[in-house]
């Protein structure tokens, strides 16, 4: 009997026993729903951590030289904090010396930031992160310009008051009208809008589009940082290996400039996405170990339930098996009939579970700040696991059915 025929037969049997099927697949259903939903949430976090966090906030193959770390995965004690704020700031000379000392190909930018208010014709946008940066900042932060342009090296050197706005500011100040060429005011000083950064979206309910970038030596610099100081030197290498070389060189230059003895700790921070990603990878690993365990438990329960239902089904249909055998069904025909039936039942349950899991992930995405993203492999895994559970659970009942003696089976009273 062809597999197609067997599946059609199985679907007919399932349709004829809707309630029984529904109960028998509940374990597989729950297991697969859980698998899809949890994997989606973990995957969403993963995407955020690797793309958004590592890619945008810190940058790929990028280190930040700062007074103290911006992202800290462990607890910051009172004492740590006090020692951090006593550290000297990163001066223009520090940043320039480090940039000059790096031997591997790289792109670097300076960045200083503070929160302030932007104004356009009486309309105010408060609590906006205003960043004073050099021209390569957009490349390192991976912030594409969707309209207009970024500022040039000449504009940076000249301290030209031009500004590139985050997407949300164009909504807030210009209500979607063309912002290019208009002048926004920061602390009374006008800046000409020359570009808009592509929309970045939300994360954990926080907008990533509430910022404005101006040139590093623009007038705004004054209220961002004390004179001659930057928040961070960002330096991007081409590969992880080159990044490590660059970091070692940067550390050596800074230690020399700060006159640190070998026993003294760094009084500056060289920060990469690694620490944060390591921290996340740890959580991820725990989840990815715990998840298969939880899914496995429900699938084992599901398999046992399906096996019992199939044994009942074989007992109920002993006579049918006898009839089929008398008409020429071989052992493997009967075996495959029941295996396919069991696999089909489980796959139907798994498919419903996939649907529910996807709906759950979409719901999580919509009503919570967690960024759930469906992993295609989890759908494949869910359906494959369902079918696999069905086959495993069906082996024993199906082989019992296949071994039935046709004469006894056909005389069986039901």
């Amino acid at each position, binding site marked *: 009997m062809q597999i197609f*025929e067997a599946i059609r037969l199985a679907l007919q049997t399932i349709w004829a026993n809707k309630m029984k099927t529904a109960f028998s697949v509940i374990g597989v259903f729950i297991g697969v729903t859980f698998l899809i939903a949890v994997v989606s949430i973990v995957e969403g976090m993963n995407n955020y951590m690797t793309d958004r966090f590592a890619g945008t906030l810190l940058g790929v193959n990028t280190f930040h030289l700062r007074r103290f770390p911006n992202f800290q995965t462990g607890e910051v004690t009172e004492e740590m904090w006090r020692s951090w704020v006593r550290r000297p700031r990163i001066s223009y000379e520090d940043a320039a010396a480090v940039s000059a000392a790096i031997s591997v190909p790289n792109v670097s930018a300076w960045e200083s930031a503070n929160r302030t208010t932007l104004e356009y014709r009486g309309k105010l946008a408060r609590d906006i992160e205003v960043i004073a940066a050099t021209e390569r900042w957009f490349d390192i932060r991976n912030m594409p310009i969707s309209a207009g342009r970024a500022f040039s090296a000449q504009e940076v050197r000249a301290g030209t008051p031009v500004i590139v706005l985050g997407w949300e500011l164009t909504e807030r100040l210009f209500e979607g009208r063309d912002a290019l060429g208009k002048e926004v005011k920061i602390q009374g000083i006008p800046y000409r809008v020359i570009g808009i950064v592509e929309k970045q979206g939300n994360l954990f309910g926080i907008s990533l589009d509430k910022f404005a970038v101006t040139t590093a030596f623009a007038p705004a610099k004054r209220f961002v940082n004390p004179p001659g100081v930057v928040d961070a030197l960002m330096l991007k290498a081409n590969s992880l290996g080159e990044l490590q070389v660059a970091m070692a060189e940067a550390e050596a230059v800074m230690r020399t400039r700060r006159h640190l003895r070998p026993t003294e700790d760094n009084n500056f921070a060289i920060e990469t996405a690694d620490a944060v990603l390591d921290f996340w990878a740890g959580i991820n690993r725990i989840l990815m170990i715990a998840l298969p365990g939880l899914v496995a438990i429900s699938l084992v329960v599901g398999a046992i339930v399906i096996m019992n239902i199939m044994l009942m089904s074989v007992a109920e249909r002993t*006579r049918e098996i006898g009839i089929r055998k*008398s*008409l020429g069904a071989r*052992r493997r*025909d009967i075996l495959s009939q029941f295996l396919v039936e069991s696999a089909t039942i489980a796959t139907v349950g798994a498919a419903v579970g996939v649907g529910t899991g996807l709906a759950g992930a979409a719901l999580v995405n919509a009503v919570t700040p967690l960024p759930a993203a469906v992993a295609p492999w989890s759908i494949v895994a869910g359906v494959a696991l369902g079918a696999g559970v069905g086959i495993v659970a069906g082996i024993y009942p199906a082989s019992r059915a296949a071994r039935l003696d046709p004469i006894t089976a*056909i005389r069986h009273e039901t």
Partner: protein
Amino acid sequence: MTQTALIIRVRGLTRDYDMGAERVHALRGVDLDIPRNEYVAIMGPSGSGKSTLMNLIGCLDTPTAGQYWLNATEVSRMSDDELARVRNREIGFVFQTFNLLPRASALHNVELPLIYAGVSARARRRRAAHALDRVGLADRAHHRPNELSGGQRQRVAIARALVNDPSILLADEPTGNLDSATSGEIMTVFNALHGQGQTIIMVTHEQDIAAHAHRVVTLHDGRVHSDTARHAA
């Protein structure tokens, strides 16, 4: 008559059953030859071994000893799956209790042997419809067994038995569950089939049913007791 013209050739067929400690000798050495296009009734009291012989001829069971050639092929030593194939190709069963699949339509019931023969879906449907037509049930193809009368059910079973063009039609008390009018109807179908050249072997304990056959083999205590031709066929 040459041996190949014999559809069934049985020599010394013995079948013992172990019933706990006791050994039951259901057949004690049966010899039987059935040529093509014969219409044979097998009779005998309960426990005479006629059902056992029927199962062996139908390749549902294998003998303890002795030999059985079906169409000049020895089937008495075949494996389960080989026997299944023989049942599928060579034998059409008609049972007392009809043994139709209750949830399947008449047409699908008739299609079953073709499914196991690996016939394509379209050819299957055509052949099954034709077989139903032969037994006069073309208009009942999509009815389920519980929507059919006893006589109609048995005719569906006959259509199913014939759909693969088997060498033998093997009927086990085919009228046992039917009233006499319907029994007569089924016997008319059998007579017609025999007239078309179908070899029929029928187990029955009813004299008037056996009277339709052209040869009656009587079993007693697991042995052939008598073997008589009724008509000059």
